[in-house]
């Protein structure tokens, strides 16, 4: 991403909206400037800010004049008043930043937009995590810190040393040169991304061991870790095997993503008649 200095009026709106805090007003240039090493090419500035087309020279004059009276030119906080952001042509290896940071860009390897896979979200169709198994999603970088691939490598090497296998369709797995060692290709190790997810699957009996490995690695890496634990419920819809292990480790389980089991191998043909349903209940909004 770049900011066109001919258009920028240094209003400062973009300095707040950058999730990495990589945009600042350069005091010498008097223009918004991007710290390219910290920028993860998430396009939040370009896609998230509304765009206006005020004439830059006029806006600068008005700003300077108003400032003399201690009055501030204040566009709406989510607006770039002069449409100053312009996407760069990204090349390897910088292009991986965008692939992992801009959620609208699908990974070439998986075809899935985002930073991981479908995990247990489609488990009712794929059967990916069965009874007695645990699917881990280990995400690095959130909230608002970002992570470099060398941080992911630190984690993947520790997990590989424990003999776990990585989800082969996961974007991080596709960047490994050796999945038995957890090594990630060397030319991207310094690239920074908003976040990404390492995915593994282990037997339930290894749940505590894996979490302790993650705890150990997170002490060594300069980013934040958030863990998701995917499990299959029993026939009654209960899950009484993994939750107690997590609670024993000190986790207070609050939030979850619950797959309610409506997925089928065959999606309903909507050209045929709809199933008979009761009339919609009245709800308040």
């Amino acid at each position: 991403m770049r900011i066109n200095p001919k258009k920028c009026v240094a209003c400062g709106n973009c300095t707040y909206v950058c999730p990495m805090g990589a945009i600042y007003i350069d005091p010498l240039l008097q223009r918004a400037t991007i710290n390219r090493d910290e920028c993860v090419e998430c396009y939040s500035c370009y896609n998230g800010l509304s765009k206006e087309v005020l004439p830059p020279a006029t806006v600068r004059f008005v700003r300077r004049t108003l400032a003399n009276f201690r009055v501030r030119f204040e566009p709406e906080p989510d607006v770039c008043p002069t449409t100053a952001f312009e996407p760069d042509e990204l090349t390897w290896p910088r292009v991986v930043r965008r692939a992992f940071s801009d959620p609208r860009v699908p990974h070439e390897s998986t075809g899935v937009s985002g930073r991981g896979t479908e995990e247990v979200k489609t488990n009712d169709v794929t059967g990916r995590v069965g009874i007695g198994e645990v699917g881990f999603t280990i995400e690095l970088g959130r909230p608002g810190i970002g992570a470099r691939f060398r941080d992911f490598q630190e984690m993947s090497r520790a997990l590989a040393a424990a003999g776990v296998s990585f989800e082969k369709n996961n974007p991080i797995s596709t960047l490994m040169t050796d999945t038995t060692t957890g090594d990630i290709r060397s030319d991207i190790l310094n690239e920074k991304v908003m976040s990404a997810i390492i995915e593994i699957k282990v037997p339930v009996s290894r749940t505590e061991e894996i979490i302790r490995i993650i705890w150990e690695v997170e002490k060594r890496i300069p980013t934040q870790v958030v863990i998701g634990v995917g499990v299959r419920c029993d026939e009654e819809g209960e899950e009484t095997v993994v939750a107690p292990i997590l609670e024993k480790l000190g986790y207070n389980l609050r939030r979850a993503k619950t797959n309610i089991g409506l997925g089928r191998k065959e999606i309903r043909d909507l050209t045929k008649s709809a199933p008979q349903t009761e009339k919609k209940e009245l709800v308040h909004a």
Partner: protein
Amino acid sequence: MTNTLHRYGTAESFVDDYIVFSLPAKSKAAGQKGDALAAQKRFMELAAEYKPVSLGDALKGGVLRPTKSTSIFGHWGKRNKPSFKAVLDGMTKAGTMAAVFDNRAAAEAFVKRIKDEDLGLSVNISSSIENAKNCCKAAGIPRHSIAYSLGFEQVGDNVPSKQAVMLSTMCGHGMLSINFAQKMISFVRENRRSPDEAAHAMSRFCSCGIFNTTRARRILEEARIGVK
């Protein structure tokens, strides 16, 4: 992707936060057949009947999107309003389609309706464990699988600026910066923007449309009066 999973906050803070989303199984190995897009359009049309806070198409955005002015007068124009129609009309490819509800009655009724529709899509509820359990119970369906969020490691319940973290993590892709959330809290505290205006400004950064403006307004109101 875990974009709806790791929202920061206590279980009680999700009282008005239910994300119900559908998606097809994309991998060839899953062998799922049928017209996923048509089924997802049906899913979203039905969701709209239950008055959600937002509808979100992960590829196109939610009910509030950034705007683009072509005239200098756009600077003084009114901001756009939430539009279900924009989401429904814009759906061109199957993916993750979400409906965000701010009350239990609507979420439970919608889940029951979706069960009766039997679309064949995978449907997930992202909320507190209890909220999702209640939805399943009301619809008479056993839960199939669960992805627990273990929360942000080393981030406790009472970090400084916790309301900014609560707001920011409502976009699980991290598109909503903590600095911007903090700025919106400051604007509300200074009465420069209403909680509604601040929530809408933040919502435009969430490219999947899963930002919950009702929860955001409540958090902003609490932050305004200094609730810790």
